[in-house]
């Protein structure tokens, strides 16, 4: 049954990618069906799990032995527990909605069949990632989603920027993958195995240094996949992909795989406090980084990408808090999955109506033209900024509370940072909202002279948006009432109640206040005044934030340029030194032969001289030998 979860989209992908043109007309429905089938399986399994006791809610399925070499035993085996189940449900439900949305969004693309093939491939890989019962199989899914992400970011390959962005995403992710590889290698040398069960069982006996090493390597992997500092640079560029991709992969599911990894490896991290500290630091830095970048971007998708980064920063931070935060990291992950997907789909709907314009300064006043989009986007907006009793309110406040609960100065620092982040979130989201849907219209004909005619998107697109909006609104409440979510996940992740200097209520009030501050600030800047169609020069921080805080410039100088010089130098050396040495030897021999050849002048008498000389030498040698 668990295998079927993965098999359905995999089969769909294979069919769509190998099927050829014959499937062009039904391809998208086929892809949707595969995804929906997966969702159905997931729901069946879910009810199955719900029927069991909390501690026994774990299914195993061993398919076959994958790579057996001596002690190295890698199996293809699945494990479905509450954590996996949560992810599976999120992935299949959001995935299916986005499949549906894409039917409309990609309607005019001649390569729609392939697009659905890639989407299915992604689903399969993502499900494999969360269902694997060992790190190596997880790694397969891990790289699989990377591949799908690569293919989908670069889906419009004729655009060089898309191709470059795709390559960048893959390569940066690969850097993270090195971390995962090394972590698995370390696990193998330490525990002789890399299945979750064995590793977690062996943690007690391992030295803290080793565990810290494993933890840091896992964190590196998580940073790559979840676009955390310092491997965050690819996410902004990844917005080159079609919008449903951004919604599914780069907002709701794949980028949260890092959080999954850290949570899944909680046992390891709990035993390595140093690694946890680093996780928290990374989360906190990214949280602010993403928020600042999100405040400055005019490209609606890139602004949302900054927001995604920031929100995942929250989750990472929460995951770094250990049992204090695991549950809430996952909870925020799920709610974020809903509202961020909703936001992206809304952005896609806006772009769909605006001739693929992404610059928010060219929008304005769209609420009249796209009422449904406005409504769903608005609800998701309220959810993300933590409007009371919407989903973001519950999940984010819990994380902020967990931060305070860490205790001591650290607790205050983390709480403060997260509150600042909440204010920034409110600010940039309000800014997006105002620039897009409020104010006067600012759109102009494009170069070809086409005046955009903003219109509401078709039903296949708005229905998913509506469902997600419902999710954004209700998820938090549903999860929080009676602590359902906490109880559900607790057996896997554990739960701790720290010693918080502030109460729950106080945190909620503080969060609401900073949220209102952020909204107010944005309203003053963008709601009261006319938004200029061309971005003003801005101050130093704004300009830096527009350039993603100079991360690409840094990467360019530090890696790309040095790499180029190194490569060119090595090519030169390979030709001149390594090859040159060999060719030089050959040339030296050639020259020597040329000299020696002159002795061979063709005159018989010369040869005769050498013969006689030789004879004389032989006679001399004989005589000498006798004399001695």
């Amino acid at each position, binding site marked *: 049954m668990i295998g079927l979860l993965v098999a359905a989209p995999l089969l769909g992908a294979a069919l769509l990618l190998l099927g050829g043109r014959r499937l062009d007309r039904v391809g998208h429905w086929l892809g949707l069906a595969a995804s929906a089938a997966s969702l159905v399986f997931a729901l069946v399994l879910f009810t199955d799990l719900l029927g069991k006791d909390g501690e026994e809610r774990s299914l195993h399925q061993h398919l076959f032995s*994958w790579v057996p070499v001596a002690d190295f035993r890698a199996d293809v085996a699945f494990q479905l527990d509450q954590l996996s189940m949560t992810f599976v449900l999120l992935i299949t439900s959001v995935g299916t909605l986005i499949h549906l949305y894409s039917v409309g969004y990609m309607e005019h693309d001649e390569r729609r069949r392939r697009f659905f093939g890639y989407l299915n491939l992604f689903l399969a890989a993502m499900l494999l990632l969360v269902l694997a019962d060992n790190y190596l199989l997880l790694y397969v899914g891990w790289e699989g989603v990377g591949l799908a992400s690569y293919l989908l970011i670069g889906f419009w390959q004729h655009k060089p920027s898309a191709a470059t962005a795709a390559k960048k995403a893959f390569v940066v992710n690969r850097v993270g993958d090195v971390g995962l590889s*090394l972590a698995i290698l370390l696990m193998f*040398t330490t525990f002789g195995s890399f299945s979750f069960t064995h590793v977690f069982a*062996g943690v007690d006996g391992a030295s803290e240094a080793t565990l810290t090493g494993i933890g840091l390597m896992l964190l590196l992997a998580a940073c790559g996949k979840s676009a955390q500092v310092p491997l965050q640079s690819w996410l902004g560029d990844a917005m080159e992909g079609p919008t449903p991709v951004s919604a599914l992969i780069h907002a709701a599911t794949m980028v949260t795989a890092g959080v999954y990894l850290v949570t899944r490896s909680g046992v390891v991290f709990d035993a390595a406090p140093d690694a946890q500290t680093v996780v928290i630091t990374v989360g906190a830095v990214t949280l602010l980084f993403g928020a600042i970048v999100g405040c400055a971007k005019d490209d609606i998708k890139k602004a949302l990408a900054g927001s995604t980064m920031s929100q995942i920063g929250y989750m990472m931070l929460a995951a770094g808090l250990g049992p204090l935060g695991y549950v809430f990291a996952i909870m925020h992950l799920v709610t974020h999955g809903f509202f961020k997907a909703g936001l992206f789909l809304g952005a896609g709907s806006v772009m769909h109506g605006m001739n693929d314009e992404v610059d928010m300064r060219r929008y304005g006043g769209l609420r009249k033209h796209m009422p449904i989009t406005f409504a769903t986007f608005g609800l998701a907006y309220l959810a993300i900024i933590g409007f009371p009793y919407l989903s973001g309110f519950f999940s984010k406040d819990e994380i902020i509370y967990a931060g305070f609960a860490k205790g001591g100065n650290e607790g205050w620092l983390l709480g403060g940072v997260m509150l600042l982040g909440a204010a920034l979130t409110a600010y940039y989201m309000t800014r997006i909202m105002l620039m897009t849907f409020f104010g006067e219209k600012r759109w102009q004909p494009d170069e070809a002279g086409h005046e955009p005619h903003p219109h509401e998107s078709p039903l296949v697109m708005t229905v998913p948006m509506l469902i997600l909006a419902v999710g954004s609104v209700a998820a938090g409440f549903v999860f929080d009432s009676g602590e359902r979510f906490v109880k559900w996940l607790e057996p896997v992740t554990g739960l701790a109640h720290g010693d918080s200097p502030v109460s729950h209520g106080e945190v909620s009030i503080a969060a609401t206040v900073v949220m209102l501050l952020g909204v107010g600030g944005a309203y003053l800047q963008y709601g009261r005044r006319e938004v200029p169609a061309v971005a003003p020069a801005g101050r130093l921080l704004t300009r830096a934030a527009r350039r993603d805080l100079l991360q690409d410039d840094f990467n360019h100088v530090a890696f790309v340029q040095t*790499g180029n010089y190194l490569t060119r130098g090595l090519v030169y050396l390979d030709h001149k030194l390594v090859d040159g040495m060999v060719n030089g030897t050959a040339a030296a021999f050639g020259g020597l032969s040329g000299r020696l050849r002159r002795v061979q002048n063709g005159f018989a008498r010369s040869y005769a001289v050498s013969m006689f000389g030789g004879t004389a030498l032989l006679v001399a040698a004989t005589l000498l030998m006798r004399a001695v």
Partner: protein
Amino acid sequence: MSFPLLTATAAVPAIGAVATAAVPAARRTGAKWLALAFSLVTVGFAAAVLLRFDTGSGADRFQLTESHSWIEDFGVRYELGVDGIGATMIALTAVLVPFLIGAGWNDADPVEGEPQATRRWRPTQGFFALILMVEAMVVLSFAATDVFLFYLFFEAMLIPMYFLIGGFGDRAGEQGEEGQARQRSYAAVKFLLYNLVGGLVMLAAVIGLYAQTADQLDAGTFSLQAILEARASGDLDFSTGVERWLFLGFFFAFAIKAPLWPLHTWLPNAMGEATAPVAVLITAIVDKVGTFAMLRFCLGLFPEASDWATPVILVLSLVSILYGALVALGQRDMKRLIAYASISHFGFIVLGVFAMTSQGQGGATLYMINHGIATAALLLVAGFLIARRGSRLIGDYGGVQKTAPVLAGTFLVGGLATLSLPGTGPFVSEFLVLVGTFSRHQAVGIIACTGIVLAALYVLVLYQRTMTGPVRAGLEKLPDLRVRELAVVTPLIGLLLFLGVYPKPLTEIVNPAVEHTLSDVHQTDPEPQIDVSEVEAAE
């Protein structure tokens, strides 16, 4: 006496070579089909070798043995036999050759109006006959358990390879017909000289080995089994110095063949100038004899010296991995890029061999097979592309994905396999090598891991520059893969995916051989720091 299966496996392509060469000039197509038929029969025999190979726990190390006296005075025997590694390598060779023949179907046809196109001009026949000849010799080298016999075929395969490189280039160069011919003969001569030098050094070591056996045993022998037994029983005991010198002699030849940095520069030239199938033949099959021989001869015959040389060799293979990848990044020529990528991969293989762990060596063996198939897929598709445009320069392409999506797709899959994406065969082997290396030499393993990133870079940069972006002028009408080409590429990709998902059949055959090799070098796998077996028991 049982049926001499190994001899037959080598004899079929050899007979095929003669038969193909004898086909009259006008029957060109017939010659192609004949060569294909013989190569397919070889696949059958190779399959029989795999099937007859006993992987049970009590099975002999060398199986399907044949032994006949040949040159009695020097104890040279015609001795064949395979362990699991040899059997799989023979299978790889046999499986790849039909694809190469299919891919090079029209590569050697005489050009219309070429002046030599006389009645007796038969390049096509020669091309396929030479390929089959190489196949026969490679199979024999994988099967030979007599050191002298191995040496013989190790060297003899240079001759047909020389003609394949020098005689049949692809008609796509930057310097015109004549410059191309000059480049080609340069590459062929370079290939020959490099390998001959290696072979010469090895010959000295072979003779030295014989002298040692003649000194210490009743009679001199070249037989691997006899020497291994004598070494195990202590009858044959090399002094430290002698063993090291002999080891170096053997290793030098194999390092050139493999090719290991800094002895690698012949490979880019040879692969760049040869046609794509021949380039595959070089890197996927012939070069594997080098790494295979490291496993079988270097480690088996000279365990102490292998141990002594390991640090240096590990460093060299690390340099190969990183250097190959970095230089690949800087290439303008597609085939040279793939050649440098191969150098990087050979670094991994040698790393695995000398990691002295069962994961490392098992991984290295799998790596040889997977690299063979992956490179074949990538390079053959690149060859199809080059044949269409008539240029090897990356800069001449762009946007192929738009006009020839299937070609681009297969190219991408080949590339992804080359960068060891999980789910494809190379991932399994690369990871095994890394595990094997890391469990004994942590630092080396960590550095080797960075090769993963570089591999992604050069493959994706290549793909991006050739396949994506706006369609370049002159490529608007680029035809997509034809049926023949698809028939060549699809099974290769299928194999790659199958081996990535279910490599167990191979590992089962390879594992016992690796155990034997490890016991030859008196090594055991390092134990994990923490025993988690009780967890297993509890389950």
